[in-house]
């Protein structure tokens, strides 16, 4: 019951942030909203894990948290210095 309510709330916030990705007047808003979206997906995966008791999904959440931070670092480095690696 409360788990379904939490899933609905987090999905609603994901849709709101997706609207910010589409609207976002600058690239900084879009990078921030993508970072937010990755965290939201991790939270959704954890809630679905609690609902279905499939502990395998937590590994996906761990990998997604690593990938989201790496994406943010790569995008900001690219926009600041023009390249990702030296």
């Amino acid at each position: 019951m409360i788990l379904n309510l939490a899933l609905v709330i987090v999905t609603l916030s994901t849709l709101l942030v997706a609207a910010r990705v589409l609207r976002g007047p600058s690239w900084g808003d879009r990078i921030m909203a993508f970072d937010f979206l990755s965290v939201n997906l991790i939270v959704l995966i954890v809630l679905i894990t609690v609902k279905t008791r499939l502990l395998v999904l937590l590994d996906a959440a761990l990998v997604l948290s690593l990938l989201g931070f790496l994406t943010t670092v790569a995008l900001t480095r690219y926009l600041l210095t023009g390249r990702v690696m030296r």
Partner: protein
Amino acid sequence: MNDFSPLRDIPILIGSFFVLTAAVGVLRFPDLYSRLHASSKLVTLGSAGIFLGAALELTEAAAFTRLAAILLFQFLTTPLSAYLIAQAAYLRALPPRLSGPDEWNQLGRHPQPGDEPPREDPTG
């Protein structure tokens, strides 16, 4: 309501409320920097609440260690990514909405696209 367990449900409810608050803030705030404030801090708090509720519900050691690792990584990386986005936006001349002059800027005006950044590679 028959399966209400407060140890699981109260942290999950608080966490999802804060995640929704952060989304509304990201959608409604007028400025990139205030949107960063809303997203980084509120999302950290909300995801911490949801992970706490999940760890109290899934009592296995495997689930607990994975959730602790995700939570620790979130605490480490969310301020870092917000800092990186704000630094890149400021150095690439996205002016903040201010009521007075920009006191952090040595030039006395907002950085323009032709200005040199203070260092060539601020992350290195």
